[in-house]
């Protein structure tokens, strides 16, 4: 009998290791022969640890399972039990998704290349190996894929620039620095299906003529680091990486590098400096990393999800992928629903679902049961959206039109106990802590911002105008989006929730 207990960090944080140990012990005690697989997560985090049992009718789920529940699960013959959820893929949160990038995540043993291939893995790469670099880049361009790391820049155009650049060495750099609050898609795919990222990077290498790649993974993700490291070694042993990719005459190899706890290193030029062993200071653009990137050589810098989506595009074709979505936002997007929400987790769907549907319908509203007050979309540099903007469909241009951004597609839900002045203050504080220090509006402005918000909190209404001016200066005078976008959370909080800034007696304590 095959039993699945996720080894994803979120599942482990909720006790999955203890559950796995209990399952092993209980099976042994009863003399039942089981195969225990530590899969990735299906992404329904409120049901973790989610245990799946393979039956003749498919995989059936139980959750959330505690180690204490395991004996009674076996007593019930791993069938009829109060924690039974039925067939896992019929759970409404899962059934409503369109899983392309995350199709295998939680389904397979993350480090089994055999299972990976049994579920469609490597077919995209095999197709790419038969194509010319030009055709590979055209395929990505026609898929409509835009960078999932935040800026939404068309991936095909970036690859074309690198393909056209002449150099003896080019690089593929995977940005796995995922520092935004409310985001965990990169972590989840690396822990749950790392070969799809490797496959995507190899295809990128074939497309632009790069033979070396780096995955820059943040140190805050020890589980992801362990899985990625193992996956690269397995891929190299199997000839997926190395001098002869899958027995072809093409070379591509990959190395894992670990960050050192600096949010700004998610910014692509700062990341490149960090990889080179320098301070993670942001570089002015131009030159673009596509032309002068790692060690001054042409470099593709792409987000984990951008690269992990490439295999399915090659497997099923650009047109198949492009047919999902809305406007210029093509394909699917893994939306991460987090914070004070009943059904938190990862929901992959075509662009176009409204924010309100995601929060209230898919997410089930707040976990506290109180009314939703605000939703921060796109990480710490994203705007706070009030329920009044819930009709906004999920798409790059659509969010921009509402003064927001989708960033890495994290949604953080707050109930009516949230204090928007404190959250605005936190945004300034975060900017001050994480600033790379290169520009004054960001480095000093954020510190002034904290002080100014404290003045407002003490009842000094005149300081509101000052804060507005300061935000305008930061927006216009900053080199990168850390300083330049901090005004989004601050000003959106002020604009949509003026009452929280109007109190005259409130102490804006840290």
């Amino acid at each position, binding site marked *: 009998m095959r039993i699945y207990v996720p080894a994803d960090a979120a599942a*482990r944080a*909720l006790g999955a290791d203890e559950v796995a140990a209990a399952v092993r012990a209980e099976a042994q005690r009863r003399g039942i022969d089981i195969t225990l697989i530590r899969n990735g997560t299906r992404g329904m985090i409120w049901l973790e640890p989610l245990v799946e049992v393979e039956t003749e009718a498919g995989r059936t789920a139980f959750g959330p399972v505690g180690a204490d529940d395991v004996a009674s699960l076996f007593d019930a013959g791993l069938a009829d039990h109060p924690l039974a959820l039925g067939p896992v893929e019929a759970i409404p949160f899962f059934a409503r998704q369109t899983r392309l990038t995350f199709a295998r995540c939680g389904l397979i043993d993350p480090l089994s290349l055999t299972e990976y291939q049994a579920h469609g893995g490597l077919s995209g790469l095999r197709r790419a190996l038969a194509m010319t670099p030009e055709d590979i880049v055209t395929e990505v361009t026609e898929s409509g894929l835009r960078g999932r790391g935040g800026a939404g820049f068309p991936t095909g155009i970036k690859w074309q620039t690198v393909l056209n650049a002449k150099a003896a060495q080019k690089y593929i750099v995977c940005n796995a620095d995922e*520092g935004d*609050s*409310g985001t965990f898609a990169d972590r989840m795919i690396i822990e749950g299906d790392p070969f799809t990222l490797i496959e995507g990077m190899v295809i990128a290498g074939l497309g632009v003529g790069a033979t070396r790649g780096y995955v820059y993974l943040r140190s*805050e993700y020890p589980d992801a680091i362990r899985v990625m490291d193992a996956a690269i070694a397995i891929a190299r042993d199997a000839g997926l990486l190395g001098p002869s990719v899958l027995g072809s005459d093409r070379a591509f190899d990959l190395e894992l590098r670990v960050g050192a706890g600096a949010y700004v290193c998610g910014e692509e030029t700062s990341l490149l400096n*960090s990889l080179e*062993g320098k*301070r993670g200071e942001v570089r002015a653009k131009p030159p673009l990393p596509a032309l002068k990137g790692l060690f001054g050589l042409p470099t593709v810098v792409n987000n984990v999800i951008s690269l992990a989506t490439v295999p399915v595009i090659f497997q099923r074709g650009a047109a198949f992928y492009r047919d999902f979505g809305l406007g210029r936002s093509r394909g699917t997007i893994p939306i*991460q629903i987090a914070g004070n929400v009943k059904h938190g987790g990862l929901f992959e769907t075509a662009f176009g679902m409204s924010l309100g549907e995601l929060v209230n319908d898919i997410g089930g509203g707040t976990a506290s049961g109180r009314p939703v007050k605000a939703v921060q979309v796109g990480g710490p540099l994203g705007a706070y959206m009030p329920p009044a903007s819930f009709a906004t469909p999920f798409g790059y241009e659509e969010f921009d039109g509402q003064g927001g951004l989708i960033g890495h597609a994290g949604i953080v839900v707050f109930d009516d106990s949230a204090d928007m002045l404190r959250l605005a203050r936190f945004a300034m504080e975060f900017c001050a802590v994480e600033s790379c220090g290169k520009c004054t509006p960001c480095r000093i402005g954020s510190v002034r911002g904290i002080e100014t918000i404290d003045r407002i909190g003490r009842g000094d209404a005149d300081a509101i105008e000052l804060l507005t001016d300061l935000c305008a200066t930061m927006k216009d005078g900053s080199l990168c989006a850390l300083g330049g976008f901090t005004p989004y959370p601050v000003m959106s909080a002020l604009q949509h929730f003026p009452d929280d800034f109007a109190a005259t007696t409130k102490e804006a304590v840290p």
Partner: protein
Amino acid sequence: MPADQTPSRDDIAAIIADHRGMEGPLLPILHAIQHAFGHVPQAALPLIAEALNISRAEVHGVMSFYHDFREAPAGRRVVKLCRAEACQAVGGAAVAAEVLADLGLNWQETTPDGAVTVEAVYCLGLCACGPAAVIGDRVHGRISAARMRALLAEATP
């Protein structure tokens, strides 16, 4: 957990030698030294500078830029509490305040007996099961002050 011991020149030199052939070896060297000794001792800086043919100030400049690297050993257990927005949305700030008060610490401080250091972290990717924390290299979700007390009692050597 890495052992906090005073490394010898040879220990450090061996680690540097292991990584010198890499492209951009400085961060991997700093990580490896910190992993081995629990911190990056001052004595390592000139050795790294010499091996990589950069100035000592440059090594220091890089090291001090990143939040991860420490010049002195931390407590025997390092607790990192997430302060970012998704954890705040579920009461993370109150939990953190209580944990700090329990231990009599401010952020980035160590208990006088050297048992516990508490640090701030900005997101662990556990945003759908916050408030989140790490003790050593074990992640914990939906923490409360009481749960942290229990975990620390188990974990503190």
